[in-house]
């Protein structure tokens, strides 16, 4: 009697198994580790009457008590949102709050949300409902609320939408409530800027290289200004002029009424930083490391100053100087009158992306590598510096003598095991203040 030991047809020798596993791991690495650069968002903190609204992590919005910094709520975690609507992927624009305390916010996942924080205390069972409405594409700019007409304006993908805010609020209670949405306008390229409402006109800049003025009620195009190359930054309205920088390396000043170009100023590279208007001049930076001061009426250059790397952050004007940072991590103070360098602080703490602020007699600046520094504006002496170990890419916001910050996440301070989320820094002392109940 012979017993034939039969090998299963699909049995694998070790070498072949290792090969399959190797291929699997390689493919997983390729698809995961070397994937595309994902969205995170850079919404700056927002101060309301008694709360601070901060995007404390990817696709997350926290509210802190403005006095105690106690975490009050977290969106979307504490709300009832199911399916894709519950998965936020990056908040770029600041949230807005209406008179009734309803918060509106848009996310990169293409949803617009409305929720009422007061519902948290009212709800006795489960999580309170939130309203969501899916627009066609990603939302990168913020939302603009016109309470007079009860309309929420949102740009998603290349379209500009008008959403009836009351309908969205009604959907909080009744998820089947219909929401009146009108696609006001479709641009030729994506819109990365927040819609700006001025004199009944909605102003949107688009990556198709055009600045559009759209009637806020009818959605009809009032005028279109063509810059030729992409416009990524949110326009600034000053007087009767709309200012917007573009990838054509120019700052364009466009008449708000007619859409005619009042003037354009040629920089040497992309202009993505939002211009800062102070007095008779506008200040802005470019991606060749230049800061320009341009006359608002004529568009003539008053002066220019060359930094060592890209200037993306919005300049900040205080007193007789303008302050700005570059991607090499240098902070500059330049005289408004002459454009001469007052001082330069080589911080060496990573790129400066957000706008600096001055309060309590200290320039506060944040870096991508997670450093916060307080610099004496007259002597450039470093008053203090703090390492957060979390990226700081959003603009800083002054709130009295405190500076509100929005780090990319919670950190574990040296010598401790507890995770904290820093929400502000005292400008005078550099003392960090953490929020409780966030991490």
């Amino acid at each position, binding site marked *: 009697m012979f017993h034939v030991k039969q*090998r299963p*047809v*699909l*049995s*694998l*020798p070790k070498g*072949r198994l290792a*090969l*399959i596993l190797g*291929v*699997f791991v390689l*493919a*997983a690495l*390729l*698809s995961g580790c*070397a*994937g*595309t*650069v*994902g*969205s*995170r968002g850079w919404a700056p903190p927002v101060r309301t009457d008694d709360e601070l609204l901060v995007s404390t992590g990817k696709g997350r919005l926290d509210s802190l008590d403005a006095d105690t910094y106690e975490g009050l709520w977290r969106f979307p975690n504490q709300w009832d949102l199911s399916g894709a609507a519950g998965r936020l992927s*990056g908040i*770029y624009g600041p949230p807005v709050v209406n008179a009734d305390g309803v918060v509106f916010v848009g996310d*990169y996942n293409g949803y617009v949300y409305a929720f009422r924080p007061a519902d948290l205390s009212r709800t006795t069972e489960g999580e309170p409902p939130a309203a969501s409405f899916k627009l066609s594409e*990603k939302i*990168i700019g913020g939302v603009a609320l016109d309470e007079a007409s009860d309309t929420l304006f949102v740009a998603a993908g290349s379209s500009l939408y008008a959403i009836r805010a009351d309908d969205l609020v009604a959907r909080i209670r009744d998820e089947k409530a219909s929401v009146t949405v009108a696609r006001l306008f479709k641009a030729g390229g994506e819109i*990365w800027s927040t819609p700006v409402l001025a004199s009944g006109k909605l102003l949107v800049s688009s*990556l198709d290289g055009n600045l559009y003025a759209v009637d806020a009620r009818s959605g009809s195009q009032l005028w279109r200004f063509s810059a030729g*190359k*992409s416009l*990524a930054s949110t326009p600034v309205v000053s007087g009767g002029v709309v200012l917007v920088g573009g*990838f*054509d*390396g120019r700052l364009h000043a466009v008449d708000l009424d007619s859409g005619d170009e009042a003037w354009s100023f040629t920089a040497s*590279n*992309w202009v993505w930083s939002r211009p800062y208007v102070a007095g008779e001049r506008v200040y802005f930076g470019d*991606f060749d490391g230049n800061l320009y001061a341009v006359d608002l009426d004529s568009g003539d250059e008053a002066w220019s100053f060359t930094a060592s790397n890209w200037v*993306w952050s919005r300049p900040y004007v205080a007193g007789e100087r303008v302050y700005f940072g570059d*991607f090499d991590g240098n902070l500059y103070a330049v005289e408004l009158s002459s454009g001469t360098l007052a001082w330069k602080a080589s911080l060496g703490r990573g790129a400066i992306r957000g706008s600096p602020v001055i309060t309590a007699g200290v320039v506060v600046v944040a870096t991508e590598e997670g450093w916060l520094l307080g610099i004496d504006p007259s002597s450039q002496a470093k008053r203090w510096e703090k390492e957060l170990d979390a990226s700081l890419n959003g603009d800083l916001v002054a709130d009295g003598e405190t500076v509100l910050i929005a780090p990319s996440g919670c950190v574990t301070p040296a010598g401790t095991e507890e995770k904290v989320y820093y929400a502000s820094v005292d400008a005078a002392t550099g003392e960090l203040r953490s929020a409780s109940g966030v991490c």
Partner: protein
Amino acid sequence: MDLIGYIFNTFLIDPLVNLFVMFTALTGNAGLAVIVVTVLIRLATMPLTFRQMHTQRMMAAVAPRMQEIQKRYKDPRRRSEEQMKLYREAGISFQGCFSSMLLQMPILFALYRTFSLAVGETPEALIKVSERLYSWSYLRESMPLPADFLWLHLGRPDPLFIPVLVAATTYVSQKMATMPPVDERQRAQTGMMNVLMPLMFGWFTINLPSGLGLYWILSGIAQMVIQYAYVGGGPFNWRALVGLSQEPVLPRAMEVRQAQQEKVKHLGRAEEEAAREEPQPQAKETGRRRRRYASGRRRGRR
């Protein structure tokens, strides 16, 4: 590690990103640029690919002779000498094969990394790409890249067609490289690999930006062309492709293999013949070596 990262970024990824942006600007389409850059890089690395394929094929051809040597020579040193001699006579250079792989792998990985960076559609991705651009205004002005190609937006996943095409091209390129199995076990293993791997790659591309899927498809097609060129053209066995025949998809591959086997069949035989004629000294020598080896081991133990 920082130095390696610096070299990898400065000499591979940065030039490739700039090349990709330049071709996108020239063609006005990122999809066409993916095609052009992939084809160019594949052409540039083709000699290396050929060399690697040749070495692999020759390795397979000398495998039977290698088994003979293993059986014949029990002394490890002598066996190793004979094996190296056989490799040398067959023109197999491990150094060459290894250096081909060593050169190709970083280039292909950098190419993948380039596309994964360049087709990203977030503002963060745009900044990351811009940081790598050389100071040539032509490149900067062409950003952000136009990402629409055919029915695809290269920065977004296409969960339907791209995974199917990735799986199909992986399957075909694998089948073209597959030789008839020598036994049932090998047949089962090869059959499973030919199905599993395409499915796996297809599955991975479901959630990846379609630009990367496009690159995988093009790489698969390039592999097919290289495979076809390597065997010197000839007919294409469609029945074998869909599993209706046990013959290879490229019948010419069999001729190439036979020629290679024929070439290596007589390698090292002359010495064996000579050794057969004088078996005594060989046996003595082997025995002496074995004793020396054994006594060495004993000495080592002490």
